[in-house]
């Protein structure tokens, strides 16, 4: 089974996330990390591979330094990484990103393409559907339980009305929920081995993507202005020094909640 997992590098959780007012794009200059919920997608892909054999490839669209984050997933057990990195792709919105990823995926000819639940910077939880549309493949999203047999995937997912069980024939696109599994920690051996696994950085032209359909040229949405959100006043923050429980009770009393 040939499996590709789409993963993204996002600003590290400890970094202050900001939009650069000059470019109106997310400032990606700080420390980056692999998007948390993408670890669930990597884990699920590895489990399918362990059960049925095959190969797990990581696919990312992002800046050159994103390869550092991909190494974490290689250390977990993925076999190779493909990073599409091109100045002409910077600032890609949903339609532009889905164009580039779909082109790269066509080149990979995967049986199964995994996505994570949502990217921590864009918070869209939408990309898989646009990519599946461009690949002309069935998609099942928000999957909290998955079974894969040789010919189809079956996923259980929560909606506003209960749970749906959806089956789709391979080749298919599956986006997982963060409740699907507990991602493994890379072993020391995995970390050592990651460096020597194939890591390819490619351009838009290399994957056959059209530069006019990528980046700002290919995007159909735009940022017009930025403003601070309405301020929330009177927020109190405490670090537990052993008296947190007492301080919470005092607060409840002060607010007349007990």
């Amino acid at each position: 089974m040939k499996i590709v997992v789409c993963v993204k590098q996002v600003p590290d959780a400890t970094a202050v996330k900001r939009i650069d007012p000059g470019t109106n794009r997310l400032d990606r200059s700080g420390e980056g990390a692999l998007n948390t919920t993408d670890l669930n997608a990597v884990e699920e892909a590895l489990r399918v591979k362990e059960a049925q054999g095959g190969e797990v490839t990581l696919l990312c669209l992002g800046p050159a330094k994103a390869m550092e984050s991909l190494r974490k997933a290689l250390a977990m057990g993925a076999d190779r990484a493909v990073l599409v990195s091109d100045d002409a792709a910077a600032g890609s919105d949903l339609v532009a990103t889905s164009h580039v990823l779909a082109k790269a995926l066509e080149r990979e000819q995967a049986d199964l393409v995994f996505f994570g639940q949502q990217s921590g910077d864009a918070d869209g939880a939408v990309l898989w559907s646009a990519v599946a549309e461009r690949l002309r493949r069935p998609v099942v999203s928000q999957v909290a339980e998955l079974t894969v047999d040789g010919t189809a995937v079956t996923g259980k997912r929560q909606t506003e009305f209960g749970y749906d069980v959806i089956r789709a024939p391979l080749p298919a696109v599956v986006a997982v929920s963060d409740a699907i599994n507990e991602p493994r920690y890379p072993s020391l051996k995995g970390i050592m081995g990651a460096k020597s696994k194939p890591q390819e950085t490619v351009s838009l032209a290399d994957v056959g993507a059209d530069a006019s359909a990528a980046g700002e040229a290919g995007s159909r949405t735009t940022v017009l202005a930025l403003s601070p959100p309405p301020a929330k006043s009177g927020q109190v923050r405490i670090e537990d020094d052993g008296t947190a429980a007492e301080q919470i009770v005092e607060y409840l009393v002060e607010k007349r909640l007990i």
Partner: protein
Amino acid sequence: MKSLVFLEHADGAITKGSLGVLGKAAALGEAAGVVLGGGAADVAASAGAFGASTVYAVDDPALAAPLPQPRVDALEAVVRHAGADNVLFASSVLAADVAAGLAARLDAGLNWDVVDLAVDGDALVAKRPALGDTVLVDAGWTSTPRLALVRSGTFDPVESGGTATVETVTAEFQDFSTQAELVEQLQEAATGPSIEDADTIVAGGRGLGAPEGFQLCEGLAEALGGAVAATRAVVDAGWYPYSTQVGQTGKTVSPRLYVALGISGAIQHKVGMQGSGVIIAVNKDPNAPIFDFADLGVVGDLHTIVPKLTELVRARKG
């Protein structure tokens, strides 16, 4: 400005969120509804009372199950038939997939998490919070139709008392769109008291560590005289019943007191509880997004704090 609004429906009723977006669309200009699948024509007529002048209905066996891809085909047919400057969706698990698929099909821009829409000359401007609601973005589109997913709970339906003309549209379905199939739909019966009526809620997330962690929530809830709620992550993992889930795909609550234990504060959880009077959060990660909107944020381990807190509350209440 003509807007098409995707009217999601279940059991013959259009969702409240969809009717809310329809009301907003009517305030922006001409508003038409789109109803797809399962008795579409009957459901369609009811949208007239909430601001739709016309409702386009597509009914076809391919639309019987709540799956996104055939809906992209149907919406494309309606957009081509009726024309539209905007196609608007109330966010839901289904609507998000439909909107993104349609964006790729039409090469149209999609803005999500929209909390307001305004007309500016010929343009439409969307307000959307970004980066965990730490910045408010005015977002636009560079082509039409403009697609938008509106954040859950943003607009309330407005009764206009009008009537809508229902027009039936036929769609052609792509082979790949109809490959996925619904195997079964499971509904979980509600158990315990409804969290929607509770004055105090103690909610638990993955930070509880294990299903047994909910005993901490139950103990504190009992001491405070409240109910227990959960995040989707732990409900999906089978730690606690679906009927207690707060958030976009669960319930919307607004108790006087909401205590969040081991909850990161994802947007989809926040939309279900941000209307609470006082929010207290205990989380060991100082960078957890919940601290951006908690009234009292406690950085610490819930396993050491909560047992003591429960005891203190019990002692005070005598």
